[in-house]
């Protein structure tokens, strides 16, 4: 199949702008690949062939007229289905939003389009971004292109699988507790969880508002940097977005790791850590040392509280954010017209039928945690622990520029393998702290396991210092990168 699909987004944009390849050809290439490969993979929930081709023609026409459509000219991207897209069905992979067509674009999507990118379609994910394997999608599972028996990770599983299999040039995901970095690691691609507030959440269907961030997923660090530059920056429609200048992240990528002080937190390397994950992380650390970085032992003593803290805060916020799905204004309505069922029946039946088991579990946990009289013991206490976790990082960053850690405890696991919710929650044990502390985190591949599965490491930086994490990630990409394509994506 066409090699142009495997080019980086940056390279594709260059070729489109110099008219070496038309946007239309690029879009066609990906549409053909989706038609051929996605049946087995299940990455897409919606493919907008007509819209994408029309937009491609507009890009080609603009270039023919001598205009510059932007730094992502003609680059075909795809969007996690928790991000709203104007005129394009958006469901958060939930039955409760089946068939909902948003009347507006979210800010990140609008900024990608404004930079010339073409949206191919919407990508599979865990329902409302709750999950670590994409198995909670109410529509269909998504599979890992490195091994179709295995999960792509989650919740941005479709976003990772589509990029890894070159079914799009790059994608957007969201990360609330690791949902960009964990699937990026399991599918062998680059994923960036930006600093909280770096990217506007306007148009991101809320899961846990104080933790959610939109970020890029790409096959190269450069592409991730390019997308992040495009979508980052303050937005008047998101009061939590940060008003700080957005650097040109790509400029720092060639600087290498020399002179960087990189912390290795001992809490992320427990005795029970998977041997191959440990070995990969150690290879990455060695590569950075080789490249001139100073490696420093650090401690993040409150790490072990991250999981329980997260599983109070995130469900509490989710129980609130998901209250709007009541069958009144949009989405699924069960319980029929008034007269046949009471209002309460309508709520019960709509929400009972519309939400999947994991979503219901988290709504119940969150509702419990916010009950009158329990707020102090749960939500408030969790916020206090969250502050301690953040303080751990503040103290570490007094001595180091970055922290490096494994992204996931194991490589990709098999579909159905983790049936107990707690086992699934543990898949995010290394990624949660970054969200709780509001820090930027970049997941980057660090080799393959003996079974040929990708293993990743993550670089966590100071608030708003995505640039340094991307710079170290680029150094790793050059040394311990995969150098191989997934077997199920020719």
């Amino acid at each position, binding site marked *: 199949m066409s090699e142009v699909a495997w080019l980086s987004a940056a390279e594709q944009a260059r070729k489109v702008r110099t008219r070496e390849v038309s946007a239309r050809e690029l879009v066609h290439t990906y549409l053909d690949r989706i038609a051929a490969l996605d049946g087995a993979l299940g990455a897409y929930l919606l493919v907008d062939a007509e819209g994408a081709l029309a937009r491609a023609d507009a890009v080609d026409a603009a270039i023919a007229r001598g205009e510059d459509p932007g730094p992502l000219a003609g680059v075909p991207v795809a969007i996690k289905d928790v*991000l*709203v897209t104007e005129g394009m069905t*958006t469901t*958060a992979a939930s039955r409760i*939003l089946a068939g*909902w067509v*948003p*009347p*507006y674009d*979210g800010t990140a999507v609008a900024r990608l389009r404004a930079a010339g990118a073409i949206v191919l379609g919407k990508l599979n994910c865990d329902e409302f971004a709750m999950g670590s394997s994409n198995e909670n999608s109410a529509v269909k599972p998504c599979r890992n292109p490195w091994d179709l028996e295995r999960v792509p990770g989650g919740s941005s599983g479709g976003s990772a699988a589509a990029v890894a299999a070159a079914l799009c040039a790059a994608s957007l995901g969201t990360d609330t507790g690791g949902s960009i970095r964990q699937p990026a690691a399991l599918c062998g691609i680059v994923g960036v969880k930006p600093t909280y507030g770096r990217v506007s*959440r*306007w*148009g*991101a*269907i*809320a899961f*846990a*508002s*104080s933790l959610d961030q939109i970020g890029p997923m790409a096959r190269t660090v450069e592409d991730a940097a390019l997308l992040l530059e495009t979508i980052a920056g303050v937005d*008047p*429609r*998101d*009061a*939590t977005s940060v008003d700080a200048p957005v650097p040109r992240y790509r400029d720092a990528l060639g600087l290498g790791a020399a002179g960087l002080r990189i912390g290795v937190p001992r809490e992320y390397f427990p005795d029970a850590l998977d041997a191959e994950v440990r070995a990969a992380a150690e290879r990455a650390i060695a590569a950075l040392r080789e490249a001139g970085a100073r490696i420093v032992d650090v401690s993040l003593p409150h790490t072990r509280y991250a999981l329980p803290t997260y599983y109070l805060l995130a469900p*509490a*916020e989710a*129980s*609130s954010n*998901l*209250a*709007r*799905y*009541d069958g*009144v*204004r*949009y989405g699924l309505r069960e319980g029929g*017209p*008034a*007269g046949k069922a009471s*209002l309460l029946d309508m*709520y019960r039946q709509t929400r009972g039928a519309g939400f999947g088991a994991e979503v219901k579990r988290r709504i119940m946990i969150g*509702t419990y945690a*916010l*009950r*009158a009289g329990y*707020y102090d013991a749960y*939500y408030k206490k969790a916020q206090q622990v969250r502050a301690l976790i953040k303080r751990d990082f503040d103290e570490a960053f007094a001595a180091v520029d970055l922290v490096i850690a494994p992204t996931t405890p194991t490589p990709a696991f098999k579909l159905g393998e983790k049936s107990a919710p707690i086992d699934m929650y543990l898949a995010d044990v290394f990624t949660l702290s970054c969200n709780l502390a509001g820090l930027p985190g970049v997941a980057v591949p660090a080799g393959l396991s003996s079974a040929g599965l990708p293993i990743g490491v993550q670089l966590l930086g100071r608030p708003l210092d995505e640039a340094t994490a991307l710079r170290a990630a680029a150094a790793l990409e050059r040394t311990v990168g995969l150098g191989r394509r997934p077997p199920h994506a020719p």
Partner: protein
Amino acid sequence: MTDLAPLLENWEPVIGLEVHVQLATASKAFSPSATEFGAPPNSLTDPVVLGLPGTLPTFNRHALELALRLGVATGSKIRARSRFARKHYFYPDLPKGYQISQYDEPLCEDGHVDFLVGGEPRRVRLIRIHLEEDAGKLTHAGATSLVDLNRAGVPLCEVVTGPEIYSADEAAEFMRALNLLVRYLDISEGDMEKGQMRCDANVSVRRRGEDRLGTRAELKNINSFRFVQKAIEHEIARQVRILESGGKIVQETRLWDAAAGQSFPLRSKEEANDYRYFPDPDLPPLTVDGPMMMAVQQSMPELPMAKIARFGRDHGLPIDDARHLAGDRALADWFEAAVRAHGDLKAAKAIANWLLSELLGALNRDGRSIADCPVPPGHLAALVKLVDAGTISGKQAKEVFADVYATGAAPDAVVEQKGLRQISDTGEIERIAAEVIAKNPKQVEQYRAGKESVLGFFVGQVLKASGGKANPQVTSDVVKKLLAGA
């Protein structure tokens, strides 16, 4: 209406009010949709108001400014940093499944509202004033319910009083005072009929002399000043009757049905919502800085109570007149403009009398407000001057006023045009009086014989002979003098 007096001999009512005041911002509290009363249903919405997935609230700082004016006017402590919290419940009028409100960190605390009850000053303490968004409106039509979200997201101030109002009259007076205050501050139109001001009342009764509060019932849906009084009186009577017959008050929420003149239980304490408050993570803390407070303080108008006091002290008005004038900021402004036009504070009382009786009478008759009064304040001042100078009589002045009101002409012009100028010239009146006396020797006899009432006859004849233009006082003096000397 129930006669409460016998019931209140042994029982004391204790009332606390929660008043919602819609703030008159052009757009909603957290989105750009317009706010307007009476627009077609669901025409004032946007993705945020509809609670569409992916939307986020952004706070309209103008609502903060308006709330701060109320906070300053009520002497409240104002938090430099307050927080929005989510209040959860499921109902179709609430698109997000939660209302953005304030909970444990409200904008204002420990304020008070001053007002008069039966001419006596009264102060009711405010526990808090906080900002929140309004919900939509439901209309029940048989088996179906219709949702209108035009009102959803309109900014509100919720004003919560302490449990220290002790009668339905006081509650109604408090509501009137608060209503006047928000209109003075220009933060709300305060029209209860339009739902711009709404009231829930917590009512309990206790035996006189008892300190502990009784079990309370919360009355909802009170939407006029009259109903505040009626609903509370009804509730007091209901509770006293239950207690006197040995029953117990159940803590519950009751819905006031104005048409039926009764309240009905809505839900008991056990069925009460658990609102699951927590700080809204979509909204950063609400901060108020020094310059903002300064700007608000500088923009404060004179408040009603201060105005009433000043009208009494500086203008010499009786308290009822002062209250009447201060009860409408436009009316008070008109009054002061007239006093200024006159130039003498001593005329203020006469101006107030003319304004409150003649002018308001005419305006009421025509269904007009002071805002579209056809008489400029200067004209009323001029009219009062004409009377004070003796140019026209009080009776003539009423005639002149009618013309001024009807045509908008200046009083001097009307007096000229109608030839109403009063004769106060003694020589002219003496001439007429001498003629009258000469023509009536019989009456002169009677007067001299000691029948003083005949004086009135002479004065009347002189006035008649002058065509009603002679100054009655001057005429009386002249006639007396001539009769004494003749």
